[in-house]
């Protein structure tokens, strides 16, 4: 049978998909064991046991200075920054995207400005944000917002303005005002797209969060991995990176589930 015609069942897909992950883990353990056989004090590729004991300290033992469980404090700090940033970005992208997409005068007025902001690399704005907002939480949240809002906004506005002209005309013949058209035609069709954009923005959002934390913070996942880098503490860095990946996958999963539950019509149409 030709490969293009192969049908992969659920169990098979799980097996096939798990295989590369298992190989990566196995390859790491073999390499780490080999290095440790030569030099038992090796720090570059720590063995799983070393990672577990290093992480146990961060997970369960209060930090002598602050009295906090560092791992959980880091996670909480990073997630709240990310959450606030994503929330503000999503909400403003939704409001502005609807206006820009559905109302031609608003689009004509704002779209050059949005384009101009969108082409600036957000990291280049980080010094400005630090100067304006100080080194506190605001600047980090602002970086996430500045980083992902333009993409979401432009994509959403494009999606709305690409809705079939027939739909708009139809709504008008049903007596819709501009407001009603936004509320009942544009908004419901924007929401599933917005979730899709949010999923795509998770990656960049994490990048901006970790960059901001690496430069100026006293708690956070990004702060921690850049701090322990000084001691070559791979036994902390690798589990932290794994944890960040796990969080990202979980957020993506929740978003895609939400979209399927709340906007079933959008997913039926694509089938």
């Amino acid at each position, binding site marked *: 049978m030709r490969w293009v015609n192969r049908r992969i069942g659920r169990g098979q897909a799980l097996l096939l998909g798990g295989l590369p992950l298992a190989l990566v883990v196995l390859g790491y353990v073999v390499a780490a064991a080999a290095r440790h056989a030569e030099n038992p004090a090796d720090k570059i590729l720590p063995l799983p046991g070393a990672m577990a004991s290093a992480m146990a300290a961060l997970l369960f033992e209060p930090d002598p200075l602050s009295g906090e469980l560092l791992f959980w404090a880091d996670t909480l700090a990073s997630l709240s920054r990310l959450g606030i940033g994503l929330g503000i970005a999503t909400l403003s992208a939704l409001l502005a995207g609807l206006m820009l997409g559905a109302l031609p005068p608003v689009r004509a007025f704002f779209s050059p400005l949005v384009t101009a902001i969108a082409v600036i690399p957000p990291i280049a704005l980080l010094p400005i944000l630090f100067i304006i907002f100080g080194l506190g939480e605001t600047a980090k949240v602002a970086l996430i917002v500045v980083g992902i809002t333009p993409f979401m906004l432009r994509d959403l506005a494009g999606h709305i303005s690409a809705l079939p002209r027939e739909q708009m005309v139809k709504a008008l013949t049903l007596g819709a005002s501009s407001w009603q058209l936004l509320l*009942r035609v544009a908004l419901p069709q924007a929401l599933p797209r917005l979730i899709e954009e949010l999923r795509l923005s998770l990656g960049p959002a994490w990048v901006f969060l970790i960059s901001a934390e690496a430069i100026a913070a006293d708690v956070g996942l990004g702060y921690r991995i850049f701090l322990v880098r000084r001691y070559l503490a791979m036994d902390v860095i690798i589990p932290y990176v794994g944890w960040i990946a796990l969080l990202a996958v979980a957020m993506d999963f929740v978003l895609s589930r939400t979209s399927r539950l709340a906007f079933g019509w959008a997913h039926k149409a694509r089938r």
Partner: protein
Amino acid sequence: MLRLSNVWVEYGEKVVLERISLDIAEGAFVSVIGPSGAGKSSLLRVILGQDQPSRGRITLDGRPLPAECGPDRGVVFQRYSVFPHLNALGNTMLGLELAGAPFTARLFGSARRAARAQAEEMLAAVGLADSLHLYPSEMSGGMQQRLAIAQALIMRPRILLLDEPFGALDPGIRADMHVLITRLWREFGLTIVMVTHDIKEAFALGTRVITLDKRRHDPHAPQRYGAGVIYDIALTRKTASDEQANESTSITID
């Protein structure tokens, strides 16, 4: 009822329609046919208010037509006439909700129940009584067009405009739709303007067939002259029995 006097439609240099003068009587079923590019859809868009004529005037019941689409004119397009995010009931109720609630565009309580009952009745009239909760993506093309008709009719428009409404349907389904639209036209006393490229359909359904084409053609400047009304045929002999006969022939020929 609807009067077009000396209407021209021009896009820049390109003349699409010229010197269109028409009087459409209440209760008429007007079919518009013509070759591709003869301005059939332009004529419909002008009546709909989606496009503006460059010259001439259009009056509805003696008053100039507003320059925007409004609830006095219902429309069914070939595609994209229904909203993908609403089920059949939601699509049909939308017009009532927009009219009844200017700010929230949603009805609640007894007003909602009344609108729902009205929508259910309308869906039953187009043969979708069993599909109230289906989304358009779960419907066949014929069901979507039935839904689009119900959605338009619930607003009781003065004129129903159909833009090749059955063009994308299978021949068998199309014949069913012909029966449906004829029945609705009678029951609701509708005035219909239908654009089609199917001559048989035009004659089978219409009480009046209008043919658009270019009267003059300049081979060096094809955009110079627009299309006008070439034939305007009144099908006065049409009776209920003829209707049946027409339907049966169109089914066999299709």
